[in-house]
């Protein structure tokens, strides 16, 4: 079976996020107020060939942790998505 999986990668708490901070600083000048705690992250989408949902997620999680994120600074998790 083919499953569509999304892996979310976010910076770990406490790790500096200059990209998020820069966006947040730029907002008022563009007329956006009331937006705070901006964080920039990545998301990877792909198809996984697996026996079951569980197996697909397992494979994706392993990929997420071994390759798609750097555990020193990032958290990663996999979920099933809809195309």
């Amino acid at each position: 079976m083919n499953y569509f999986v999304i892996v979310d990668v976010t910076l770990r708490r406490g790790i500096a996020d200059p990209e998020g901070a820069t966006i947040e600083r730029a907002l008022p000048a563009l007329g956006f107020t009331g937006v705070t705690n901006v964080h920039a992250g990545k998301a990877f989408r792909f198809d996984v060939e697996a026996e079951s949902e569980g197996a697909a997620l397992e494979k994706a999680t392993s990929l997420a942790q071994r390759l798609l994120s750097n555990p020193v600074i990032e958290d990663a998790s996999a979920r099933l998505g809809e195309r």
Partner: protein
Amino acid sequence: MRSAPQPLHRALGLTDTELDIIRDVLGREPNSLELALYGVMWSEHCSYKSSRMHLRRLPTHGAHVLVGPGENAGVIDAGDGIAVAIRIESHNHPSAIEPYQGAATGVGGILRDVFTMGARPLAVMDPLFFGELTDARQRWLVEGVVSGISGYGNSVGVPTIGGELTFDDCYSSNPLVNVLCCGALPTERLVLGVASGVGNLAVLLGSSTGRDGIGGVSVLASAGFQGSDGAVSLDDAKRPSVQVGDPYEEKRLIEACLELLDERLVVGIQDLGGAGIVCATCETAARGGVGMDVDVTAIPLREEGMQPYEIMTSESQERMLAIITPENWDLVAALCAKWEVRATVIGHVVEPVTDDQGRSVGMLRIRDGFDGEILAQVPASSLADEAPLYDRPRRRPDDLDAINADDPTDDEPVGTPNDDLLGLLIDPAWVYRQYDSQLFLNTVVGPGSDAALLRLAGPGLPISERGIALSTDSNPRWCALDPRAGTALTVAESVANLACVGATAKAVVNCLNFGNPEHPEVMWQLTESIEGMALACSALDLPVVGGNVSLYNESGGHDIDPTPVVGLLGVVDSLVAPPPGWQWCEGDAVVLVGTRHASGPQKFPLGGTRWATKRGRRGGRVPEFEGEVLAKAIAFVAREISQICAGAASDVTAVHDVGGGGLSVALAEMVAVTGLGAQIIELEHHGELFAEFPGRFVMATNDLVAFRARADETGVPVVALGIVGGDALRIGETIDVAVGEVSSRRRGALEASLASLG
């Protein structure tokens, strides 16, 4: 909204007359695929149909010119068995809608032009033009373009060593992004994009083909796409699908192609740029006088359901076409596999046919399968070289006399000269710090000086002590007032920049960025500008080895100011020590080298200067171009500095040409980078602070008597301006600013403007 459907040929950007010509060429009605091929190949962008007959005015010959205009890049013989290839191109319209990718793919395209000649790309330069930094959109454009050049150029591994940065409202919705690339190769290895040898294979290298930039060529280059409100209002039909660059693919493609050439595995090679596969196949076939069969089904695709016309005209990036003999296929395939570059045979060279008048004609045939049905069949040269040429109507703008008469030269100074001077200082370091300017260990003078200077060295090149110098220059303010003199002066200024690093100019490339050629005023500007370039190049004995024309640059219905950009390549015969640059020392004498007064009726003309423009005064006259006078001063400086580069002792400690902003700005820049002040004499006239005319240099020497004697010998005028030292820049009674203020205002100007926009 949509009017009655127009005939296909018009939708493809072809006029009724052009359709008739196509019918004549084919002796029948073209089918729709054939029309699409003509549509892209006969677009302004590919065919230069509005400018080509005028470009013939430019001088292109010189003993050292190995390849002149018309090839992928111009090539000169730089000596010691090394040839240098150079090329400049624009990526204006794509950058207006996706600044990062537009600029990035501009870099990718220019690199391919250069390694197509067999040259390893050694340096990129990026003349950039934006609107004034007054709104967030300009900031988005500036940051996007600069990071696009940085993101692609750094990653692909070619240093970006200089450029230009101009802000003017005429570019606010139509920024200009020009990119120049220079490369080097052993002279004996020069290759051209020629297909020859019936039975040879056409091999597509690199990326797969998607729907990127389908019809982008004709749509972008043959019709404006700005709404009258100045906003970019693309309807979906016209929206060019933007191309995304992949510098990693390009890097591997460069290495693979250079290795293919080293191993002599290719007969000819050609990059895929505007108009994609159709352009590359018809040009190589036309140059070789042969025919070519292309199997449209063989081309690796990235998307499903692509039509033959989409496949043939797609502008997907990072692709090359190599012509090889069938015996070499296995070796080519293995070499490409090593670099993880895809290689696919997509066609082969066939005999030309004989037409009914007995002429031999190479046909480009698009087939559905290797021996499949013929989907299109047209003479290759009719696509590549035989677009109709237009001598479009020209007219000197009616209001130009009034504009010339509105001269700021006699304006009373208002405000304080100190503030005027400080307001003109801007350090482009924020831009060039984002570029790797040092890769390959050749960069003796990087960005931030008058010209860049590189050791002429690289993997695979014969050993040489020579250096090459590069400068790009433009002055749209001059060219708006007088495109002929303005362009001539721009060339002179660029040659002067080269002299500051000890180089003698050897070749020119140019990128002519103009408005809508259907406006007679724009055609007048274009032809005048070409005249001016021809004039200056003849006077200074400089061949033009290549160029690019970008038309339809309009902002909100207004044409941009005429913006010819020149790129100059110079050579330093012996480069063992760095040139002195702007680094003057305490106690040095400061001198002005070159004529103190401008040629023409005005001693210190202020028309078109940064000073006048800043005050909203855009009228006036520009100085006259006096080739002989300029050439003498320039040659003197080039000789003085080249001796230092060759390792000789010299009393000259610093040199800087007087460019944008005039004499006071040149002095202030030297103060800013050294942190040393200067005491300068009272000038003749307040206009002398800010007047701009080339052929003048600020130099510093620790032996004024000896220096003056050498200048006198050559008849080059020298004025002693003052002495280096103190904690301020003082010019007579007029200017007095602290060194710290000069440095910090210059350093912070660009960041401050960007930051003020959120």
